[in-house]
């Protein structure tokens, strides 16, 4: 039996006290400064995250030893209004050239600064990773454990 579940995109927004140009630059060129440092795919500690500033540009991480791991690519580069990435890390946090979800970020000027709107979509495409997802769910320290810890923190 085919059971369809199509989750809605993840949508987030945050308002920052900066002009759109600066907000855009820190999100893109300055990604290393705010990325959660333990969320990367290389075998060695993360040194830098690079998003090449053009459509079709590569998006990758550089390890402390200079090794490069692809994350995806830049689909739209419209400074300071909008950037769209192809997020090509699958459910196992491995780069897969055939796997594409879209991450769109819009920078909207406001009186107090810039509202940054993020949307991570096409999450149904993770469906192909069913076996891997189940393996992670079933493993010790899998997602549910992390989720429960987070929920506990959020509800505290």
């Amino acid at each position: 039996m085919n059971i369809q579940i199509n989750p809605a995109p993840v949508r987030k927004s945050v308002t920052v006290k900066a002009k759109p140009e600066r907000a855009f630059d820190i999100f893109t060129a300055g990604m290393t400064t705010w990325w959660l440092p333990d969320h990367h795919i290389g075998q060695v500690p993360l040194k830098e995250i690079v998003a090449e500033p053009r459509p079709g540009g590569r998006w990758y991480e550089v390890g402390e030893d200079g090794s490069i791991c692809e994350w995806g690519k830049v689909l739209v580069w419209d400074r300071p209004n909008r950037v769209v990435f192809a997020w090509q890390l699958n459910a196992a946090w491995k780069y897969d050239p055939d796997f594409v979800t879209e991450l769109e970020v819009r920078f909207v000027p406001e009186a107090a600064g810039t509202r940054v709107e993020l949307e991570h979509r096409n999450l149904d495409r993770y469906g192909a990773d069913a076996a891997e997802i189940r393996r992670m769910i079933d493993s010790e320290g899998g997602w549910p454990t992390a989720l429960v810890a987070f929920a506990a923190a959020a509800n505290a």
Partner: protein
Amino acid sequence: MANQYRALAALGDNTRRGIFEKLRAGPQPVSELARGLPVSRPAVSQHLKVLKDAGLVADRVEGTRRVYQIDPRGLGAIRAWLDQFWTASLENYRAAVESDSRENDE
């Protein structure tokens, strides 16, 4: 936006967490799931509805009974994971933008 924490909230409840854990053993009907849990069968059904709405479990009808299983594609889990990932990341991002005020009034 209103449902963004639904999957997280679903697993934050101890009883629902217990039901979800039991489903790891494989698909089971409500009667089976309710066995050994300190809550009534209707309460288990209600918890299952919450888990289903969060995309964490799926159900199907087998004869006269309804059988539940962990969503075989794990999409509820990954969506919830990405949700908390981007929440934390954007908070880091905001802090990075505002920690350096040199150009804030550019």
